[in-house]
């Protein structure tokens, strides 16, 4: 070929050889470097990356167990598991750049402010691969929209889960309690027990106390997932889930309804804010009913309570979330004379002989201080029966003075005051039994004699929870066995087998002679027969008990103190108060009652009418009005 331009470069060609070679060297270096790096990644560290790929792919995923149910003592359903949609987010699959878009989408669909969604996302305590709950109990149509637009919402998952539904709602909220998400601060500890980041746990009531039984055991399955966290297939089931056990409560829904009806009647009539009715079987310690008003609807929590609703409950001055029957302590007032009387008899300062009497007076004087009888007159000389029956303050001042504070405290503790009863509900208060030692610890001085007087009639430093007071009277009614109050009778397996049967749990046998207890039971009956409790005696059943009017707070402009009303009663089965065969004890407590008469007595009376389906109605409407009868005791 001899065309001109092909020859143009011939002289330069040989000169270019080093450049070709240099280029070849560059190629070799490039491929060599890439190969070296590949060797490092794939061969030297292949195992490490293999593990990471496996972690990406394979996930050990818990299989939730069905939570156990609850029934009342007659098999009425107290809790159901119902399906509900929840919306959850796996932060690891939600790129930061898309987060504002996803959050605002969810906000629109779910009707939750952006801020709250962002808070939920940031609160997630676990790893970024753990699902964070954004909304519970989402309406099905919204849930469907969210799952359909799945691709636009990376990391967002809609799941069907079981949520709790409480058919009885507010009636039993205080007892049954509710479940809620595990608190972030508890998660660290609970993780070891198999709880997940986004897991439900019993938060209060029986749901909390019997959490271990109800929860069952979660199973574990090994799943293969894709990058968006979706389950591709189950590789293997490592462990099957085990359904939780169910609870049969000692509570009788009908008794609970009656109790609530009775107390609501009085509270509505007298305009009261807080009240308690507890019903138990003194022979066993079984709680048949426990009403604490105001109450709340535990379904609100089961559905995922809104912040507004929660704030409203928390800010309510009457504390609907608190079970006032066990979590609050109040001065017990004259009901406490049970302790003083028992002590006086047991220590021999007074006797059960009706002729053994002390003089009741308009007032006692200690130094310069006058301690008044509640009617400021007295009844002359009284034996223990009439003194208890009239609820004479000056009589029991004298007995308390003879016992002294520490001996009085001894008998109080025998009855279970000053320590939690151990009822199977959370947050029980312990009450207070004053002693010299206690006062030294708190105020650095001994109890004054006047304070011993006050302690003898359930005022001053004495405080007790309603359950403690009822339990003390139950011990009196059953002949001296202080039993642990229980709300759960039996634990049943998912198949219905009895896992744990009911048995009464003895706290202690009271160190009190049986005849002393019989005397106090008879004295309790005298309270009724002497008509201290008005027409309670006219009920066609035999009721014994003791009322109390416990002053608290500050005097009004007329020098009168506000007061709580108490009435603790038991119903001897045989109709003979001397016998220790009572199977029903009822306590009513009205906070800041300020009614014309003792409203608690009226509540108990009404309850007994309903309980025994009596066709008499002896309610004294005129006593249950807003007034201050002042010292009706």
């Amino acid at each position, binding site marked *: *070929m001899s065309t001109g331009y092909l020859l143009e470069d011939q002289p330069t060609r040989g000169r270019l050889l080093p450049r070709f070679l*240099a280029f070849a060297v560059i190629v070799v270096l490039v491929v060599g470097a890439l190969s070296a790096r590949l060797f490092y990644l794939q061969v030297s560290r292949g195992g490490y990356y*293999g593990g990471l790929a496996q972690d990406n792919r394979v996930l050990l995923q818990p299989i939730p167990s069905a939570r156990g149910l609850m029934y009342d003592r007659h098999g009425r359903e107290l809790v159901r598991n119902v399906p509900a949609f929840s919306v959850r987010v796996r932060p690891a699959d939600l790129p930061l750049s898309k987060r504002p878009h996803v959050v605002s989408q969810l906000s629109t669909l779910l009707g939750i402010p952006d801020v709250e969604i962002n808070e939920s996302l940031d609160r997630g305590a676990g790893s970024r691969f753990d699902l964070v709950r954004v909304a519970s109990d989402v309406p099905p149509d919204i849930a469907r929209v969210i799952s359909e637009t799945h691709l636009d919402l990376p990391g967002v998952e809609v799941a069907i889960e079981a949520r709790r539904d409480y058919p009885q709602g507010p009636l039993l909220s205080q007892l049954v309690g509710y479940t809620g998400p595990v608190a972030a601060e508890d998660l660290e500890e609970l993780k070891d027990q198999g709880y997940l980041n986004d897991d439900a746990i019993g938060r209060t009531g029986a749901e909390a106390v019997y959490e271990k039984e109800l929860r069952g055991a979660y199973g574990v399955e090994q799943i293969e997932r894709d990058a968006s966290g979706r389950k591709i297939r189950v590789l293997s089931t490592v462990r099957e889930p085990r359904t939780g056990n169910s609870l049969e409560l000692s509570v009788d829904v009908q008794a609970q309804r009656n109790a609530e009806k009775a107390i609501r009647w009085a509270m509505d009539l007298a305009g009261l804010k807080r009240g308690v009715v507890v019903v138990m079987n003194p022979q066993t310690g079984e709680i048949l009913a426990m009403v604490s008003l105001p109450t709340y609807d535990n379904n609100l929590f089961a559905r995922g309570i809104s912040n507004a609703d929660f704030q409203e409950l928390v800010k309510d001055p009457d504390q609907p979330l608190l079970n006032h029957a066990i979590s609050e302590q109040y001065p017990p007032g004259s009901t406490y004379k049970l302790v003083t009387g028992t002590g006086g008899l047991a220590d021999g300062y007074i006797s059960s002989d009706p002729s053994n009497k002390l003089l009741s007076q308009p007032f006692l004087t200690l130094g310069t201080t006058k301690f008044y009888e509640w009617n400021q007159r007295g009844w002359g000389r009284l034996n223990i029966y009439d003194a208890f029956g009239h609820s004479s303050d000056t009589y029991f001042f004298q007995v308390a003075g003879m016992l002294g504070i520490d001996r009085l405290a001894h008998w109080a503790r025998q009855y279970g005051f000053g320590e939690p009863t151990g009822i199977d509900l959370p947050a029980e208060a312990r009450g207070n039994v004053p002693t010299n030692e206690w006062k030294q610890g708190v105020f650095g001085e001994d109890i004054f004699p006047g304070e011993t007087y006050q302690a003898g009639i359930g005022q001053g430093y004495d405080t007790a929870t309603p359950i403690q007071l009822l339990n003390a009277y139950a011990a009196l009614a059953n002949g001296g066995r202080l039993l642990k109050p229980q709300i759960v009778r039996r634990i049943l397996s998912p198949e219905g087998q009895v896992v744990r049967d009911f048995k009464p749990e003895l706290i202690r046998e009271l160190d009190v002679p049986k005849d002393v207890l019989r005397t106090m039971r008879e004295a309790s009956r005298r309270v009724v027969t002497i008509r201290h409790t008005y027409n309670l005696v006219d009920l066609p059943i035999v009721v014994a008990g003791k009322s109390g009017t416990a002053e608290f707070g500050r005097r009004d402009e007329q020098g009168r103190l506000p007061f709580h009303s108490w009435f603790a009663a038991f119903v001897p089965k045989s109709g003979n108060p001397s016998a220790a065969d009572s199977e029903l004890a009822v306590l009513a407590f009205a906070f800041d009652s300020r009614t014309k008469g003792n409203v608690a007595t009226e509540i108990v009376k009404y309850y007994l009418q309903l309980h025994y389906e009596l066709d008499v109605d002896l309610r004294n409407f005129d006593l249950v009005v807003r007034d201050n009868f002042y010292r009706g005791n």
Partner: protein
Amino acid sequence: MGVLRLEPTRVHTWATRSVSTVWGLFDWQLALYAGLLAVVGVTMAYTNSGSTPLTPGTTFTRGLMWLAIAIIAFALAASFDYRWLRTFAWPIYLVNLGLLLTSLALGDGVGGVARWVTIFGVQFQFSEIAKILTIIVLANFLASRSNRLSSLSTIVGAGLLILPPLALVLVQPDLGTSLVFGAIFLGTLFIGGASLRWLGVTVAAIAAAVPLAWMYVLKDYQKQRLVSFLDPAADPQGSGYHLIQSQIAVGSGGMFGKGLTNGSQNQLDFLPVQSTDFVFAILSEELGFVGALVVFGLFCALLWRVLLVGWRSQDPFGLVVAAGIASMVVFQLLVNVGMVIGIMPITGIPLPFVTHGGASLISIAVGLGILESINLRQAKPKW
């Protein structure tokens, strides 16, 4: 004008050559290595096509279609007398710029990116074609100045020639492809015989301009992608995600890989857009270190044949085309694989043959076809 004068001679030359001589001059090895690499690409398309790779519209069936078109393009380019390209160098240049402007005007990429143009429902990336066309134009320019190669004016001239297409690609924005233009520019000048001194000065000037480009030209997302490879763990869900998942894919492949279609990183979507720029990660995951080395071997063999065509070419034009294609392939290999294995920034440069994409495959087929054409039309084969 001078070219046209030579026309009768060339026709005569072609006519007098026997068929057996022509086939003897055809570089079968070049075609073989390129073909094997294309097979690797189609194989990766197969593994990325899910459970039904044979249904229409999958990456695999589209890959097969593009492969068929690429083979035809290769054959046409090989039989076409490459010297016509010199004749039409300037029109080609204008067409080149026209295509890139069209991309900017009609491009329909995601998030303000104008890389792809949709023609009859098929997305096409003109910047891939632009690389080959620019090589042709550059080769023509350097060949015409082969006696003045050592002067600065040659470098400046080549620079002025390559700057418009480079700039048009950069504003798409496609930083990666614009860097390929830079590699072609330096590679052709280096192998073509430009003054090393002035080349050194040019490289120094470019290096000095990098900080300025960083501050004024690059967009934030580009900077973020560029630096994220240094510490992918800093934003594992954001810009570092691809890098981390890519390295997990590569590393978990081990020596022999998990087997075709068995890569969990691939099949379970842990590595998004596995069919595009990160396809080498899937190759490494499923075929292992050995598979990757085989691919490297094929690239080395192909580059050897490409450079050989250039060296054997009696024509400086052929030399420069070969140098341009070789520079382009090496640079893309380095940057794409380097990105996948975490030693290079993410720039979105395809791996020739392996990354799925019609434009990329057809451009390289046309480029190699031109090289075959050059080989076929040498008077005196030396080896």
